[in-house]
């Protein structure tokens, strides 16, 4: 049985369906992420788990026990708030020790645990300072220490990196991963940033409009999005309108208007005549010289219409014969601009049949 079970949970605010029949199960010691645009219901779900709100229907079970009716202060679930919500009138030590005091622990144990946890987040020298004397990253670590010190069954993190600058965010992201591995506590992480989600999570649930669109490991979500929303929301992806010609067997044969046949590994259910989109990531698209013989299942000819030099990679926009513009990503070699393609160059593009996915409309 999973540590946390969310069963058919719905929550309405007036006319807004904040959560619409959401079911999820989160395993012990998992780093689980709820990813989605603002208003997708991820924070509502987090608040239901924390106990600040109750679902209209459905239930939430922790260790197979229903959480309904248990107030937030009685749940073994702690939260790291987006604004950190550190108590401004308490020192770092008082803030971090707060949950232990609430749990009625002995002074000796509080002192010992406090020392350990502050050491863990590298804040031992800041124990007597007040929150307004700390930097953003330090506040973040105090919030983490405070939420972890009483060893909750579940740690909820509500966009904890949103208020940090990019450099710091990267650093704290790695710290978070290491921390979760060390303490072995289940993390439920809420974010709207797909990069954060892919970097930290064991599994990601992509949410939209109060529904869970897809749940899976980061590489599944990224490589094999199940629908247009997931494909579009995570990273950049080429979407070609297609029609299914042959379904069944070991290959799915699609036709893109004016382009010809695209072969794909059959993943989703499809039937001949069905319309949908074919999705392929820019970095999976290969570029080769126009005349070369190509062994890839799918290959077409096109013209470089634009290029964007980003340092580590260059993004090429390649107009295919049917007018569709494909994006392709090429890593830049150490030798500068060798092999750099100029605008107007006629090139071949291609990709393996397993590189892309067919998405039903």
């Amino acid at each position, binding site marked *: 049985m999973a540590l946390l079970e969310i069963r058919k949970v719905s929550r309405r605010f007036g006319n807004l369906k904040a959560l619409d029949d959401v079911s999820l199960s989160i395993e012990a010691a998992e780093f689980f992420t709820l990813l989605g645009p603002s208003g997708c219901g991820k924070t509502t779900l987090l608040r239901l788990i*924390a*106990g*600040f709100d109750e679902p209209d229907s459905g239930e939430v079970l922790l260790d197979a026990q229903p959480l309904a009716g248990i*107030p*937030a*202060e*009685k749940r073994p*679930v*702690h*939260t790291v*708030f987006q*604004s950190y*919500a*550190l*108590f*401004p*009138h308490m020192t770092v030590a008082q803030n971090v020790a*707060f*949950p232990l005091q*609430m*749990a009625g622990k002995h002074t000796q144990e509080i002192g010992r645990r406090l020392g350990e946890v502050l050491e863990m987040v590298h804040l031992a020298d800041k124990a007597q300072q*007040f929150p*307004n*004397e700390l930097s953003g990253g330090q506040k973040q670590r105090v919030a983490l220490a*405070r*939420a972890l010190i*009483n060893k909750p069954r579940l740690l909820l993190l509500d966009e904890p990196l949103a208020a940090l600058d990019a450099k710091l965010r990267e650093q704290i992201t790695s710290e978070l991963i290491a921390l979760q591995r060390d303490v072995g506590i289940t993390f439920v992480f809420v974010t709207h940033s797909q990069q954060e989600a892919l970097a930290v999570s064991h599994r990601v649930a992509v949410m939209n409009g109060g529904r869970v669109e897809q749940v899976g490991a980061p590489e599944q979500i990224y490589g094999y999005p199940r629908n247009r929303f997931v494909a579009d929301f995570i990273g950049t992806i080429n979407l070609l309108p297609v029609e299914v010609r042959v379904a069944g067997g070991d290959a799915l044969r699609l036709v893109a208007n004016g382009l010809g046949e695209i072969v794909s590994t059959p993943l989703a259910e499809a039937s001949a005549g069905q319309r949908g989109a074919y999705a392929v990531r820019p970095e999976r698209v290969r570029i080769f010289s126009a005349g070369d013989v190509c062994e890839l299942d799918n290959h077409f000819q096109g013209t470089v219409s634009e290029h964007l030099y980003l340092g580590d990679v260059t993004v090429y926009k390649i107009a295919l014969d049917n007018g569709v513009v494909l994006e392709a990503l090429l890593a830049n070699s150490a030798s500068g601009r060798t092999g750099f393609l100029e605008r107007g160059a006629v090139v071949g593009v291609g990709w393996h049949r397993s590189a892309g996915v067919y998405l039903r409309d």
Partner: protein
Amino acid sequence: MVRWSEWAGTVAPGFICVTESRQAGRCPGPGEALRKWLVSLPPTLFLLVFFVAPALLMVVASFQQVGDFGGLLPVLENGQSTLSLEAYRFFFGDWIYAEIFLRSFLVAAATTLLCLLLAYPLALLIATGGQQHRDLLVLLVILPLASNFLIRIYAWMIVLGPAELLYSPFAVIVGMVYVHLPFMILPLYTNLESHDPALLEAAQDLGAGAWTRFWRITLPLSLPGVWSGSALVFIPVLGMFAIPELLGGTRDILIGNLIKEQFLDNRDWPLGSALSILLTVAVLLLAWLAAWAGRPRRERA
């Protein structure tokens, strides 16, 4: 030493915007310095002429002697100074004055405490209640101030008279609390309204029940508001003479009445001045104490 701007900031956070700390560390150019001077000149002049000068005159008056027909003897007579400590000696020579001082402080303390007990729940209710009723409720708190203070006290005479409660210490306290309650509610409300609701959620999330949340989070964070409100009630109550005169009995006179008597009835200006100065010194001491207690934690450490 506590700076006046800080004290003003703690006394009336909602009404006075203290800009000094925000500008600290920035070096104003000469043009800006001049502009600051010009802007602050009218109020400075006003205070010098109508507050500082009379206060100084009163200091001098407290050392002068009573003239033959009331008023004051000239400071110099036949080349001899007539200044004396007579008024102060008089004050410290009779227990009755110390008793009236003490009684006044007790009344002020009781009024402040009662105001605090009544105002806190109300302010908390307004601050945490629905946004749509907030302005209306605050307006209702201020509304009584729109009608004349004396009329409102007369109204209390009509209320308390038939109940046979008039002319008693009880009536004085009721009047004092009634008049000063808004000055406790407003700073408390301003403070409580500024609390980040996420703090209470965090406390609850980390295991604190409703009472603990109040004692550990709401109350400590509201202390600046408590000090401000207390100062705004305590100080005016100390100097109040109309309420004890109208609602109190003959035994209920306070410092304010005593001072008024010296100037208007006994024609003993030196004693009146000395009493005023002693009261001012006592109030300043208390204000300084309140500012010391109410300043941010970090500075106290």
